[in-house]
């Protein structure tokens, strides 16, 4: 039972590592977002957008 569990888990870990290496996945703290369509149309370079739009004010 334990053997099967560990084997499944370990195969999963090695597989995940291999897929990550193949697809360029990294464990990192950065976040990923999607620009709203209107921001792309109106220009996302404005100070106002980055401070009150995408990052929610900072």
């Amino acid at each position, binding site marked *: 039972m*334990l*053997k099967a569990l*560990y*084997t499944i*888990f*370990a*195969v999963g*870990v*090695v597989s*995940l*590592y*291999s897929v*990550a*290496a*193949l*697809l*360029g*996945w*990294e*464990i*990192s*703290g*950065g*976040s*990923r*977002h*999607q*620009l*709203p*369509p209107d*921001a*792309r149309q109106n220009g*996302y*370079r404005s*100070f106002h957008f*980055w401070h009150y739009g*995408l*990052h929610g004010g*900072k």
Partner: protein
Amino acid sequence: MSVLVANCPSCGAPIEFKSGQSIVVICQYCHSAVARTDRELKDLGKVAELVETGSPLDVGLRGTWKDVPFELTGRAQLGHEMGGQWDEWYATFSNGWLGWLAEAQGRFYITFQYPIPEGTYVPTFEQLQLGQEVYGLPWPTKLMVAETGRATALGAKGEIPYLLTPGETYDYADLSGANGAFGTIDYNETPPLIFLGQQVTLADLGITTTRAPEKEERRVEAAQLGCPNCGGPLELRAPDKTERVTCPNCNSLLDVNQGKLQFLKALEKPWFQPVIPLGTTGEVPEGKMTVIGAMARSVTIEGTQYFWSEYLLYQPQIGFRWLVNSDDHWNYVRAIPPGDVYEATKTAVYNDKSYRIFQDAQARVEVVVGEFYWKVETGEQVRGVDYVKPPYMLSKEVSTTYVNDPNAKKKKRTTGEINWSLGTYIPVQEIEKRFSVTGLPRPSGIAPNQPYKHWWIYKYWLAFIVLLGLAGVLAFVFAGSTSQAYSQTVNFPALPNEDGTQVFFSEPFELKGRRNIRIVGQSPVQNTWVYLEGDLINDETGVVQSFPIDISYYQGVEDGESWSEGGQEDSAYTSSLPGGRYVLRLEGQWERWQQPAVVSVQVEQNVTRGFNFLVAIILLSIGPVLMIIYHIGFERRRWSESMFGGGDDSDDDDD
């Protein structure tokens, strides 16, 4: 071809000396032992009828040893002073050799007489100690004393190469050495005679099918007898081997002599009941065997009495084996030659494996039930020493008996033997399955030789780490080299105020899909910091990947020693982004806001990074590390039961 044909001086029947080396021939009509001298034939007296031992050998049987043919020309049956008997067969070889083939408990030993080398001192019988090495014997391996005792000539058949006098007794010592070496010192003469050889199988002697079918039938057949005390029915499952049996009806202890029962003493109703009933047949590693006897034994350690039980198994073709049940753990046990074990202070070596001492105590027989091949008594004591190497246990039992001998110079002498056995741990479930019994109690503690069940985790661990390493190497080989997607030195003007920021947008650049990304920021800061909030923005899809770059570098001299902290470079990693054109946005803040800041930034792809690999190793190691902790606890519990406990926790199993 006969050497001498004559008439028996006792009954006149014809007798024949076939071998020139024969001294005595047993008259097959009147059982007189007839010795030939230079001038006449001499009647030495009548020998007893041979006890049927179920031996596969017989006088007249032929075989070969070391490519030399031989014939068994005689047989003597010798009585052991502690009960029971053994056979010695005399092998006359075609090249003039004379061999002694001893047979006891289904084992065979072939020996030849050797002259004592000049200058060799053979200890006297009184000087011999069990376990001592006998030096100077012409044999390639060391030989140690495994048994000492007194033999009595009981019966004989055929031709005997020495002056066998019926009823005569003599002292002997059996020797044992590595690789089945065996020897006997015969103190019947002065100086003693030395016989050396080795344990053999019938196949080694070129003897294959020797037993007549009717003899075989008789050997395996159980005997139905009546108890001489209560008259109740009693079955002997090993009639040709049993020396003692208990009556299942009245609990009498009975002596078995040539199939006849003799009442010895009444035993109390046993508190011990075998959990595997007598007569049960089970499949053990060497074949099918039947439980013919059981006994409870005990040791007393620091005032506490500990009990266990032993089940005697028998099968004519295999011999005797034991099942030992201690604290609901089970072991299958077989005897091994004493000379094959090398014993040091706290270890014993057998078959190149080292065993650690676990217990050394005086074991006592408490209860006996069923049949036994020796004259067992309740209260019988031996010194038992156990050595372990899971799943095996080497056990030494030393029995020493003081015998009163009013006729000897030394009125009291000791006799005894050393027996070694090898036990193999068998899980209780397997015992239930093999012996078709149910409901055996489950063990709660750890047995001295209980194997640790989870050794596999270390092999699996190593295997998956290797697999992970291979995956890492392949990923490195196939990923190709690191490529630079963008590089720029950015000059940020001074901030408008302390909380203000400056923003930089790059020209669009190409990022490839399925490749990780590293953004490296460098700034020539000295005892200050620059912080960049970065974003990679896909112009076409609107995907934004944010990342932080935190550059801080401090240095100084304190108490005459220089120090530094941080660096003038920081990097951030992100997972791959869909391939396409991206803009890099950097929003900067820095401590010295009144001054402009210079930051060099590079965006790279296909960067080798060990972080994922490290995380994978940690994940793979969580289970094994927990198992190591459990394993250490397991070994501590095992050795807490030992009188030699503690110390090394890393006892390895032969799993």
